[in-house]
């Protein structure tokens, strides 16, 4: 039975896997100790659970359990990594290199660093959404202390050449941080093979709970340190104080374990559904896939349907939960900065939908989504003066549109 609406917004957040919930339950009920309480069984039990979760996560990303710093989520991890490195390595320099297509949690943190006397270079991406490695290397100065490039993009799913980037960082003795929120748990991420020094990720993007995330901080070759942004009891090797969120951490650990175990099978199935969705939807006239389809997460598809507006389209596909790069979905009235960074014209950016599948997505749901989107696009094009002009062969660029 198809249950409506269908959730295809899994880059925003994923549902909690029932296996994760089950693992968390004891820690939401009977096992309520503080993991820092060293003197009684309640504390020991909690600490043991946290240690086990650390191992589960370390196994997923191939690091030592000691290199995991628990946080409230990827936004906090991004803040801790960037501000923490900026403050800790102030004597070495003040220059950070990042991308224009990073998540706001990175971009706004970089803005903060700029106000604090830092220098930030925002590299452009190409029309596929990929970094230019030559530009990256050219941007390095003797003051550069950090390269911050996301593993995979949240709007278009494009995966950056992480190993090439880390090799450049290493060659110049610069730390490499990656916001891997969209990648961890979805594709193989190996901090050793990938040469990552710091990495942010989150529970709720990988079928775990909200309110918990982690920052991987390398301990060897090189030993990386960050200045704490939250002061207090000195938890997490002094880098992040605050009583540990034991149920959340247990959930993140279980989510990591399941991801490691199911990734291959999940990816195969999800990618097949995504490819079918995309193949079908691009049979619609004047539809365009945004970003690289070669270097991309298996569960994301971002498509622009020219001559229909994204928010109007989302209203038309009311039985689907998706998101749009349209301005109307934000208060700013500016269309997606990520799509614009690919060189998309504003009208194409306005016309985009992002589909994000999960391990719970079914073939039946994809069938429904295909039909629903096709119908909505066709209905809205009947309403669209731009579509009519296009069909009449009028070049829309030849019209003098009123500025407003």
């Amino acid at each position, binding site marked *: 039975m198809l249950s409506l609406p269908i959730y295809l917004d899994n880059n925003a957040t994923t549902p909690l896997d029932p296996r994760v919930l089950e693992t968390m339950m004891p820690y939401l009920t009977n096992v309520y100790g503080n993991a820092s309480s060293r003197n009684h069984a309640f504390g020991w039990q909690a600490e043991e659970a946290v240690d086990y979760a650390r191992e589960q996560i370390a196994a997923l990303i191939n690091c030592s359990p000691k290199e995991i710093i628990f946080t409230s989520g990827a936004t906090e991890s991004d803040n801790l990594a960037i501000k923490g490195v900026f403050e800790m390595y102030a004597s070495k320099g003040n220059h950070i290199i990042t991308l224009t297509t990073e998540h706001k949690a990175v971009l706004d943190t970089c803005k903060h660093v700029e106000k604090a006397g830092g220098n930030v270079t925002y590299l452009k991406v190409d029309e596929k959404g990929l970094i230019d490695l030559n530009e990256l290397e050219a941007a390095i100065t003797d003051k550069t202390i950090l390269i911050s490039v996301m593993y995979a993009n949240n709007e278009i799913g494009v995966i950056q050449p992480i190993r090439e980037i880390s090799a450049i960082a290493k060659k110049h003795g610069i730390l490499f941080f990656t916001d891997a929120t969209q990648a961890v748990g979805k594709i193989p991420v190996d901090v050793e093979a990938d040469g990552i020094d710091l990495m942010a990720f989150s529970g709720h993007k990988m079928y775990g709970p909200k309110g918990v995330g982690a920052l991987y901080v390398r301990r060897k070759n090189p030993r990386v340190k960050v200045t704490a942004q939250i002061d207090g009891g000195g938890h997490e090797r002094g880098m992040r104080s605050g009583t540990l969120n034991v149920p959340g951490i247990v959930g993140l650990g279980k989510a990591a374990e399941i991801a490691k175990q199911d990734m291959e099978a999940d990816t195969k199935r999800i990618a097949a559904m995504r490819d079918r969705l995309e193949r079908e939807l691009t049979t619609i006239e004047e539809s365009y896939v945004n970003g690289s389809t070669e270097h991309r997460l298996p569960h994301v598809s971002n498509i622009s349907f020219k001559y229909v507006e994204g928010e*109007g389209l989302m209203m038309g596909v009311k039985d689907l939960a998706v998101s749009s790069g349209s301005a*109307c979905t934000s208060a700013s009235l500016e269309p997606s900065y990520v799509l614009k960074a690919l060189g998309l014209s*504003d009208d194409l950016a*306005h016309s985009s939908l992002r589909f994000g599948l999960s391990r719970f997505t079914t073939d039946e749901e994809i069938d429904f989504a295909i039909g629903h989107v096709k119908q909505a696009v066709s209905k809205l094009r009947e*309403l*669209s003066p*731009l579509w*009519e002009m296009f069909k009449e062969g009028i070049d829309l660029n030849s019209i003098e*549109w009123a500025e*407003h």
Partner: protein
Amino acid sequence: MAYSDKVIDHYTNPRNVGTLDKSKNNVGTGLVGAPECGDVMRLQIEVDENQVITDAKFKTFGCGSAIASSSLATEWLKGKTVDQALAIDNMAIVEELALPPVKIHCSVLAEDAIKTAINDYRVKNGLPELEMPKSHH
């Protein structure tokens, strides 16, 4: 953001979608907005010898509120004289559709479309162009 029932109704069953023959002298066309801004409205009126709007059609590229604003405008225009049509204020559309503040620009665009269509009709029929109020959206 939740849409009002009236917006949903106009979006689901838009009134008077279509195209009038813009080459006719008694047809006025208003094309406003811009694709880059995410909304374009085309509103057309057909006027009889008594200055009564006998038909109105629209096509809109935009969000649900933009579609609803233009659909509502065509409903209101039909049967009105040109002078009565000029008096339609965007705030009446806001009120009727219960548009939230971020969607007020949709109603402004609809008012612009009405006035632009009327001006097109006036110019075609040798009447002086009316001054358009500067819209703020």
